[in-house]
């Protein structure tokens, strides 16, 4: 009887131990992206962080004031509708100067940039973009005062499906 009780307890303990070890391994792997990435990424795929760093330097991007509307599942990655809205002011002394759009999974993540002026009245823009695979859509807004605001939204791109 006693032995029967000990059996599961022991396996549970070993299980927790091994799970902990696995978690630790994952943590180590996650903290060394430079070691893990080359194996999974396509040879000429660019990292979004490098692209952003190249474009904006070490400037801080505030992840607020921007909203991206995009479908959760895109049936065709070649046509993904996105709408970018922002509640930032559009006054002549302080307005959203530029919207930069990135699709992280694309070979060239930079998709488009849109220059706005106070005459637009509202920092909102909708367009349709191509996405190579399931990844984040990322937006970085530049204001006329030089501040950066950003947002990201995940879109699942399904390939194939019904009705060829």
């Amino acid at each position, binding site marked *: 009887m006693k032995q029967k009780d000990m059996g599961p307890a022991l396996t549970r303990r070993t299980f927790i131990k091994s799970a902990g070890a696995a978690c630790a391994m994952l943590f180590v792997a996650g903290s060394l992206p430079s070691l893990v990435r080359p194996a999974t990424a396509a040879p000429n795929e660019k990292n979004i962080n490098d692209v952003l760093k190249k474009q904006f330097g070490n400037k801080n991007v505030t992840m607020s004031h921007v909203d991206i509307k995009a479908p959760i599942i895109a049936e065709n990655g*070649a046509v993904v509708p996105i*709408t970018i809205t922002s509640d930032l002011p559009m006054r002549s002394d302080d307005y959203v100067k530029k919207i930069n759009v990135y699709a992280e999974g694309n070979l060239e993540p930079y998709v488009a940039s849109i220059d706005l002026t106070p*005459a637009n009245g509202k920092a909102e823009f909708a*367009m349709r973009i*191509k996405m190579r695979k399931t990844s984040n859509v990322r937006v970085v807004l530049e204001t006329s005062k030089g501040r950066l605001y950003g947002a990201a939204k995940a879109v699942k791109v399904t390939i194939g499906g019904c009705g060829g």
Partner: protein
Amino acid sequence: MASVGKIKIRVPNTIKKGDIIPVQVLVSHPMETGMRKNKDGSVIPAYYINDVDVFYGNDKITHCDWTIAVSANPFITFYVKADKAAPIRIVYKDIKGGVYEQAVQISPQ
């Protein structure tokens, strides 16, 4: 799509002065990436719109810089503060030198 560079602009029917109105524009264009191959295996050369300008009267109010990652038959919605009676003119330029433009008159009441 057989034709390239046809433009459809849609604005609200009634516009009050000072309204912020949505302008929806659709243009027919293949937006080839230069990465696709046709049936005999040769690469279809890149052919896409890379530059969009929007004028309201004489002022350039919006400019877009596009890459291959904008969908075929590009569709955009942008907003304009309708504070004067003037045409909204949109000009598309593609990398083969094609220029397509169309205008719509805005007359706020």
